[in-house]
Structure formats: structure tokens, C-alpha cells
């Protein structure tokens, strides 16, 4: 029987409340308690990046974040990027550059790239590759993903 913890935080710009257990990860909270399934379970150990979200302006893997630790913080998931201009440019580039195949890794990479472009306006291909080194993709071989992110960077300036 797990103790229940009440937390409140900002999720995609909206104040929300949730009841979580100590061992629950932020990923589990988002998917199972809050029904936001855009953030994916890929490995549960921070190695694949499919669960990437941003917390207080930093991207991180939500599978390693304790849900209770979301209390008082600002969280953005892929769903929260629906109308953001930077994210719109990224998503358009992903589509036009052929960077999406099965698409399972895509939300995590879009969030990570969105975060990266917020820090560095014109990342070089090398910087982009390093920037997404924590995101695994099995389908694309990364080349078009890197092109898409560079493309979006160029479009945004």
C-alpha cells in the first residue's frame, strides 16, 4: 500500500493538481494519471529520450523524474507545444524533411530540439547531433532529423 502525495504544478500553461505515489515517475503520472499519451515510454531508464519533457525550462527524461518532484514546477510536454511558433516551425520541418518514419521517437526529439533551439539559434549539424545524442531512433538513421532541426533553425531566424 503506497502513501499518496498531493501535488500541484503548471502543466502546459495550466495549473493542475495530481495525486501521486512515491515511486511513480513523472512519465507514469503524465500517461496514466493525466492521460497525456504524447510522451512515450521507451525504456524507463533515461537512455532513449522518448519521454523527454521540459521542467522549469530544462529538458529531461520524465521516466527518471519522480512525479512528486513536479510539485511547484512548470512542465511542458509535446501537447503543450501545439501552438508554439518555434515548435510549429520544427514540426513543419520534420514533416517536410522526411524526418518521421514510425514516429515513436518523434515527440521526444521534437521537445528536445525545441529546447535546443531555444538555447542556440543556429546550431551546427555537429551541435545538433550532440544535442540529440540522448534520443534513440531506430528507423531514420538520424540524418533527416538533423536536417530538419537545422532547417527549422534557419527558418526561425
Amino acid at each position, binding site marked *: 500500500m*503506497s502513501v499518496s502525495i498531493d501535488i500541484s504544478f503548471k502543466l502546459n500553461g495550466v495549473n493542475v493538481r495530481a495525486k501521486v505515489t512515491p515511486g511513480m515517475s513523472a512519465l507514469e503520472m503524465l500517461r496514466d494519471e493525466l492521460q497525456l499519451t504524447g510522451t512515450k515510454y521507451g525504456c*524507463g531508464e533515461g537512455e532513449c529520450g522518448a519521454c523527454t519533457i521540459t521542467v522549469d525550462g530544462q529538458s529531461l527524461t520524465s521516466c527518471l523524474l*519522480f512525479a512528486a518532484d513536479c510539485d511547484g514546477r512548470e512542465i511542458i510536454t509535446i501537447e503543450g507545444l501545439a501552438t508554439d511558433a518555434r515548435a510549429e516551425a520544427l514540426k513543419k520541418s520534420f514533416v517536410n524533411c522526411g524526418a518521421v518514419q514510425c514516429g515513436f521517437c518523434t515527440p521526444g526529439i521534437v521537445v528536445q530540439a525545441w529546447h535546443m533551439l531555444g538555447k542556440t539559434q543556429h546550431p551546427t549539424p555537429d551541435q545538433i547531433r550532440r544535442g540529440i545524442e*540522448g*534520443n534513440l531512433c531506430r528507423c531514420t538513421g538520424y540524418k533527416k532529423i538533423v536536417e530538419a532541426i537545422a532547417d527549422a533553425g534557419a527558418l526561425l531566424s
Partner: protein
Amino acid sequence: MDAKVTTTERPPAAPVSDITAVETYVAPRSLAEALELLRAGDVTILAGGTDLMPQSKTGKARFQRVLMNIQRMDELRGITEEKNFVRFGALTTITELLDSAMVKSRFRALWESADHFASDQLRNAATIGGNICNASPAGDTLVPLLVFNARVMLASKKDAAVATRTLPLAEFFVGPGRTHRQPSELLTAVEVPLPPNGFVSEYFKFGTRPALDISTIAIGLGAVRSGDRLTDVRVAFGALAPTPIRAPKTEAALNGKPLVDAIEAALAAAELEINPISDIRASAWYRRELVHNVLRRMLDRVGKY
């Protein structure tokens, strides 16, 4: 043939120590509050969570009754430059190390270890305090911190007052995953003395990727170059012993001697100071070969700065 019977039943009397053992979750905002909680005992500390969460999921971590999240304590944040040293708050993230121009110029090997750490997402969450207290023999920042003679600050509350003590990092590790931190103590900061003028340093982490690898071997090297020789030599090894270690014999073989002549003696000394194991990442033999070849290259390179 005699039947050998085995069961999978757990001994029922063992106490529950997985995450369901947690009865209270707290997130103190001040050091005093946190130390009070620690004094009461039975506390598991949560910082970035990048080690604690996977260990929780695999059942490797043992949880106490109280789960204490220290990330709301601003006193543990910040990089402060003092006269002779730099203080890194325990909650300094690896990204903060990487983004610091001061760290890149003054503590080059530490900066390089941050650059080879996991991934951007993990660097944003992982803390230097967590990396130290997790005490993995392969911990990325630990090798350069040893090169720079870092020391850890531990705080606790005995009665009403806050007590602090300082310990050289080299004396802090007991074994894989174990340190001299007492259950009632909190690691609040790590202090790194400014290296002498002309000190150069380098961090090597073996891998086929820039990051996202657990070290197979790691080498930290630092020294002052004086003409054709090195002085104030620091050599540290990671993933080559039960804890990250300094290598005094290797250092002695290099200190003050013409570098070109000292390299072979240094490599021979290093051979004796490391104690690699064979695991799924690499064999002990290969680790030894790597140390030999890579350390030679690093020494050749440091001679050419």
C-alpha cells in the same frame, strides 16, 4: 538421477525496503529543516533522481521510511568563486558545469567530463552532489575532481547547532556505491582549490560515443609544465578499481623528471596501481591495454602543449 528441487519463494521475514517502504515524502526548503529530518533518521535522499529512480525500478535501492527531496533548497545551489577555491553547491547540475566558462578555462578536465556525461537531458537533471554520493567507480565527474584535489563539505545537526566537516574527496569513497557520509549528514557542497598557474588538465573517457556510455575506463591527468618536465602531477583513474582513485606511484614516476624518459616508468607504475575487473563492458586485459596505450598518448600530448 536425484531430483534437485529449488523454489523461488522469498524468505517472508525480510523487511520491505523497496519504494513501498516510504511512508512520508518531504521537500524541505532550508538546510536547517533538512538536517533536522536527517537527525530523526530513516531518510533516503532524493536529488536529481537520475540514479535513484532506475535503482528504485530495478529494486536495487533500499528505501527508508522518509523520502527527502532536497531540490527545493536554494542553499545547495550556485557556483561561488572564492580567493583560492571554487565552491560548487551540491545541486549544481552537470549542464551548469558545462555552461560555465570559468569551469572550462580553470578546470578543463572537469569540463570535459561534463561534456562526456550521458546526454543533455540527463545533464540537466544530474547533480555533482548526486554523482559524488552515488560513488560509482565509473562516475564521470569523480576522476577530474580527484585530479583537482576536491574536498566535500558535509553538514549535520547534533543538537541545536549545524555541524560541518570537510573531507578530501580522495578519502571519501569506501567502495562501489559507498562513502563516508553518515546517515545524518548531507553533502552540501564540493570545494575545488584553484590549480596552480600553468596547470593543464585532460579527461579521457573510453567509448565509441561522445557520451551516453558508462565508462569502460576513465583517466584524468593534470600537471604544470616546466620546460621538458611535469610538476605537480595528478593522475586519477575511473572504472579501474572499486572506487575512483588517484595514482601516487604513477604521479611520482612523472613528477619533476624529463617527461620523455619518464613515460615508460609511469606506464609501468600505472599497471600496478589499477585493478580492473572483467565485466560485460570489457575484459580486465583490455582495460589494461587501454590504460597503457591511452595514458601514453595523453602524456605525449601534454608534452606538446
